C-alpha cells in the first residue's frame, strides 16, 4: 500500500520536475545530440561530485561501460563503452553526492546514427 502510494506520487510528480542543483554541466556526447561514434562518455561539474552509480541504457537494455573515474569526488567524470555503440538511442543515468552532502542524480540522452 505504502509502496503503491509512493509510486503513485512519483508518477504524478515526476513529469513536472526538471533536474537542477549542480549547475548545467557539459556532457559528452551533449544531451540530445546525434553522433556517429562515442569514444567516451564524460560529464563536467562546477563543484566536485562523488559519482557513485552510472548506467547506460539502450532500448535493448543496459550497455556495459567501464569507469575511468573512481568514486572520489571529481569535477570531471569519464567512462568508456566496452564495445562500439550500435546505432540507436541511449540514456546515461548517474547518482551521487555533492560536496555539501546533498544526494544528486541526473541523466543525459543521445542518439548514435550510422
Amino acid at each position: 500500500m505504502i509502496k503503491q502510494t509512493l509510486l503513485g506520487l512519483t508518477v504524478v510528480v515526476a513529469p513536472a520536475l526538471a533536474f537542477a542543483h549542480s549547475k548545467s554541466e557539459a556532457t559528452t556526447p551533449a544531451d540530445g545530440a546525434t553522433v556517429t561514434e562515442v569514444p567516451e562518455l564524460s560529464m563536467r561539474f562546477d563543484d566536485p561530485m562523488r559519482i557513485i552509480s552510472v548506467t547506460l541504457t539502450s532500448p535493448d537494455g543496459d550497455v556495459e561501460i567501464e569507469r575511468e573515474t573512481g568514486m572520489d569526488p571529481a569535477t570531471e567524470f569519464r567512462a568508456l563503452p566496452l564495445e562500439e555503440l550500435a546505432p540507436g538511442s541511449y540514456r546515461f543515468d548517474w547518482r551521487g553526492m555533492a560536496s555539501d552532502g546533498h544526494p544528486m542524480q541526473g541523466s543525459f540522452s543521445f542518439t548514435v546514427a550510422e
Partner: protein
Amino acid sequence: MTGLAPIDGLVVLAILAKAIGYGAALLAMGGVLFSVVFAKHAEASVLRLAKQLAVCAALVGLAVLAIRFGIRAARISGMGFDGATDPMMLGFVWESPLGTAAIWRGIGELAILAILLPRFGHWISLVGSVAIATSFAQVGHALGEPRSALAVLIVLHLLAAAFWVGALIPLRRAALAPDGADLLHYFGNLAAGGVAALILAGTSLAWLLSGSTTALFGTAYGLALLVKVAIVAVLLGFATWNKLRLVPALRSQKPGAVHALRRSISMEIMAVALILLATATLTSVTTPPVNL
C-alpha cells in the same frame, strides 16, 4: 520549475524522516528550554511533562538520525533500499557533511537525556540544545557564504523555534492547572521577543539564500518558502489570538476558556507539523536561488 530535484519514493521517505527529525530536535531543545526558563513559574506536573517530552524527543531523534543515514545511503547508491545497509555507501554518507552534523546532533540529543539528572543535569542538557542547533549549521546550503552569518542565524532561528514549539504541549497541559493562566501569560510575554528573533533570523536567512525577491516567484525554493511563510502566518494568527483573547479569558475564568485555549494550541501544533513538512521539502528537493 527551476531548482527542483527529481522526486521518487526514496525522496518522499527522506522528506518524511527529515520532518520527523526536525520535530524531534525542536521538541528536545524546546522541552529543555521550557523546563529551565519556567522552572519557577510552572507547576511540577507541567515541568515533568516538558522533561519527559524532551527525553522522548531526543530518543526519537537518535533513531531517526540512524534511519536517515540509511535513506541517504540508499539515495546515493542507485541500488534502492539495498543501498541503505551497504557499508561503502554508509561510509560515503559518514564522510559527508551529514556525518559531521550527525555527530553534533547525536551528542546533543544524548546530552538532552541529562535533564533527568539532578543538580547539573539541566546545564548539560542546555549545552546539548545548543549542540543540536549547531548541527543544523553543518549541512547543506548553510555551508555557503557568508558561512558564519548563516551559522549564527540558523542557530538563533532554531533555538527560538524550539522555545516556541517545545512549549506548546506543556502549555496545553498548563491550561488545566489552577495557576496555569499566569504561566501562559508569562510565556506570551517572553514569546513575543522569541517570535521576533525567529522571524528576523528566518527572513535574513531567506534573503541571504534567495538573493532577490523575484527569485521567490520563479523558483521551486521560492514557492516552497512562500508556502512555509503562509503556514507560519496562520500559526502567528493562532498565537496572537491566544495571547490577546484566550489567555486573558482564561485569567478571568470565563466559561469555556480552557477548552478554547487548548483547542487553539492543538491547531498551533498542527500548523507546526505542516511547517516542518514544508521545511523538510524545501531543504531536500529545492535549490536556493543563490546556488542556481
